[in-house]
């Protein structure tokens, strides 16, 4: 078994109102110096050894992310 992490982020040109709301809240909470926040999704998949990279890429592209509005990365990590 391997652990695979898929990170999905809104594309830079797509408005991210949730990230903006977080950014706007930080000064109110007394945290200064944070100029921008983007909010995305982080998936951790437990993957059998015979699942290849092409399959993982397909899972990310067709299901976990919507390529119209989101970018994504797939990486294998130490479990």
């Amino acid at each position, binding site marked *: 078994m391997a652990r695979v992490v898929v990170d999905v982020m809104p594309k830079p040109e797509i408005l991210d109102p949730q990230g903006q709301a977080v950014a706007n809240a930080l000064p109110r909470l007394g945290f200064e110096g944070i100029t921008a926040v983007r909010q995305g999704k982080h998936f951790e998949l437990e993957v059998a050894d015979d699942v290849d990279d092409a399959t993982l890429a397909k899972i990310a592209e067709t299901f976990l992310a919507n390529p*119209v509005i989101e970018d994504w990365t797939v990486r294998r990590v130490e479990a």
Partner: protein
Amino acid sequence: MRVGVVTFPGTLDDVDAQRAVKYADGEAVPLWHGDHDLKGVDAVIVPGGFSYGDYLRCGAIARFAPVMQEVIEAANKGMPVLGICNGFQILAEAHLLPGALTRNHKLHFVCRDQWLKVENTNTAWTTRYDLGAEILVPLKSGEGGYQADEDTLKELEDEQRVVFRYVGENPNGSRNNIAGITNARGNVVGLMPHPEHAIDALTGPTDDGLGMFLSLLDTVVNA
């Protein structure tokens, strides 16, 4: 006229969509998300709600439901398909319509009666309207912001594929005030507002939405 109305776990507006079909003298045929056939219907409505709890992204899981494979195949052959609200999100996720629906720009769920301008009266669902008519129907959504890249927006505008546009203040941050669009063929239409909630003055703000279902009747009869 037999019109399929799809129900997923979490669908809310299937009953109102069925009622709208009946108001247009059609027979509403319930379709379940696990069905593998469309029961010989002439058209399909994918109604609003929160299919599969909106998990992952709105419409992302519903797109892969067995019944949707049949809907996608039929739509690509020219069957009229209408996606309302969550149904619009599902049709976008299924690539039957371009673009995507995202979180409202002010983050609030919007629930109000909304004026729309009808900008395309050639689709399977809008022939009964006058071009440029303004209609009042309910809008109720938290993820109704229409997004697409510049090339897609230009294509939609150049080909008059924006079917409905918000009038007045943009309720959700949709690009170009887009409330609803159609595919190149004009058989598939998706919109965030709810025409099926505006089919008589007793239960809706107007009966302005009924025109979509009467338009379908004309389309099916003339097919």
